[in-house]
């Protein structure tokens, strides 16, 4: 068991900096997910923790001990790779025991560990098969099993589910959660899929172009994102962003004109930092936070373009001037032919961002 601390971690490939000073504190036993778009440096960070990449600057500590110059095998970490990285010429059993056998671990102990991993992952029947005789989900289990056998202090997962089909992904997600409960060890999990992040994480680290944008519990990020990027990245379907302009400041509230919606105005109460009158702002509204005409603080008429009916709810893709909005409606309210309708925005269920994307609270 071990906490993992990243202090001002920098990574450069040649002269090109891809991680710009990451500070992340991971508590012992915590399940932390690094999430962000492809190429943002998630894998690089994880591989630095594993020791597969050198650390160009800053420090990484595992269990209180700085590991910058510690060999990968001595860091007490185990990694599950996106492509599984199983040894193709070995049976499942040999795959699981290979590392222990190569290091002269006592035979009885090796057998005990392999047996335990096989039981946890329910792969007992597959022990004599080779990787190419396994399905994707089974390979994934073996890859996780190989990590379990090492009895590491920290598990590292790099997009472990991205090669699986949707159904299996959900199933394996649950299993990984269960595994975390069962083993109680620290896990760092990398994914580009915000749903995976939301469902698995104790805490999420949102990354963008090598910068940590925000760290927090899933619902904190959902309710209270600190910038427009996090607001747009967390939540599915994505948050809507409506262009606005501050027309008036009064009583620590801003009157915002939604410029693409025929002068509709919203009064948004704010804290200390008030924007200037005339400032361009962006109003963020989640699809599920629109309400019916008259129920909110600002009505805007929209024209439905496409509707996706999921059963309990429908997602309506609507045009409102040049902006496309996604609106969640109760299925019963969205009927065919009902193209023009009005939705309403509640001030307390909307988020305000300045032009650069920083949150105005």
């Amino acid at each position: 068991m071990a906490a993992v601390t990243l202090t001002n971690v920098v990574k450069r490939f040649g002269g090109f900096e891809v991680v710009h000073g990451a500070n992340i504190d991971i508590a012992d036993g915590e399940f932390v997910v690094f999430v962000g778009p492809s190429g943002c440096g998630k894998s690089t960070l994880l591989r630095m923790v594993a020791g597969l990449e050198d650390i160009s600057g800053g420090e990484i500590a595992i269990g209180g001990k700085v590991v910058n110059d510690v060999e990968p095998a001595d860091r007490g970490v185990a990694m599950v790779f996106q492509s599984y990285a199983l040894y193709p010429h070995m049976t499942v059993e040999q795959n699981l025991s290979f590392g222990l056998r190569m290091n002269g671990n006592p035979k009885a102990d090796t057998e005990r560990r392999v047996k335990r991993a096989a039981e946890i992952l329910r792969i007992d029947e597959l022990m004599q098969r080779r990787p190419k005789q396994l399905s994707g989900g089974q390979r994934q289990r073996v890859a996780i099993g190989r990590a379990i056998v090492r009895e590491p202090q920290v598990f590292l997962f790099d997009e472990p589910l991205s090669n699986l089909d949707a159904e299996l992904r959900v199933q394996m997600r649950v299993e990984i959660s269960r595994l975390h409960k069962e083993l109680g060890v620290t896990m760092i999990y990398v994914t580009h899929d915000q749903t995976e992040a939301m469902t698995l994480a104790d805490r999420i680290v949102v990354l963008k172009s090598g910068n940590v944008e925000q760290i927090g519990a899933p619902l904190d990020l959902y309710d209270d994102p600190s910038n427009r990027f996090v607001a747009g990245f967390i939540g599915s379907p994505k948050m809507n962003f409506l262009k606005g302009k501050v027309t008036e400041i009064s009583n620590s509230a801003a009157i915002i004109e939604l410029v693409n919606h025929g002068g509709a105005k919203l009064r948004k109460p704010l804290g200390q930092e008030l924007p200037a009158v005339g400032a361009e702002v962006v109003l963020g509204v989640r699809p599920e936070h629109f309400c019916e005409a008259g129920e909110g603080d600002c009505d805007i008429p929209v024209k439905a373009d496409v509707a996706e009916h999921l059963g309990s709810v429908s997602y309506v893709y609507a045009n409102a001037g040049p902006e496309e909005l996604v609106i969640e409606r109760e299925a019963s309210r969205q009927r065919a032919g009902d193209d023009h309708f009005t939705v309403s925005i509640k001030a307390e269920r909307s988020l305000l961002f300045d032009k650069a994307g920083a949150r105005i609270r």
Partner: protein
Amino acid sequence: MRYRNATAYRFLTPYLLIFAIFWIWPIISSFIISFQATRTVPWRFAPTFNWGRLIGDPAFYNALKNTLLILVIQVPVMISLAIVMAVLLNSPLLKARGLYRFAFFAPVVVGEVAYSAVFRLMFSLDFGIVNKLLDSVGLSKIDWFSNVTPAMAVIMIAVTWRWAGYNAIILLAGLQSIPDDVYEAATLDRVSKLKQFFYITLPLLKPVIVFCAVLSIIGTMQLFTEPFLITERGGPGGGTETLGLLLYRQGFRSLNFGYASAVAYTMAGLAIAITLVQLWLTRDPK
């Protein structure tokens, strides 16, 4: 559908015709000739004439012994060398990889006569660089071409020089098809680089190694150029005569086509037999 097939075959006809005349027919014909006495006019059918002679011919056993000796020593040495070269070529530390790849491959492209001439020069008694080097480190000169053992060594060195790089390039392609993350997983499993080589690289490379070995066995079974040009027609005194040379001597110098055909079939049969044994020994379990 049938019409389309017919059209396809019509387009293939010129090729098939040439293939039949210059490949299939000689193969069949030499098989028949190997059962004929060809030094009488007209040739006559005499099933044991050539094959009977072959079984008792000391020249044949000499050539067979030489060929197998080269095979047994040169092929494993060359393949091992090629594996080492491929691993070095694949190293991320290596700069100018393209240059090395070309340099390793180049010997195959060099003309056989030119390459043989250079090897003769390098190993010449008085002017050769090899003897100069031996001399400079205080060893006595070797008369490479007058004694059988050194002459065999020269042939093996020459063949290895010519083909090791070629095999290394094929093996390199095999190495590059092994994904990096398998090695990364092994590194995290605390498996040393050396153990990674023996427990991961070699087993995963096995099919390519077998492929190279089969190619080399077939090539060495037919060995001709080097003993013909470098050791002057299998010299000294037939000490480096191979089956390929024996075939040439019988077929094209003594014009004994029947006997030469029997030798040719023996070579092919041996190559197939050795290859099958090789494939059987290195087969995948299950």
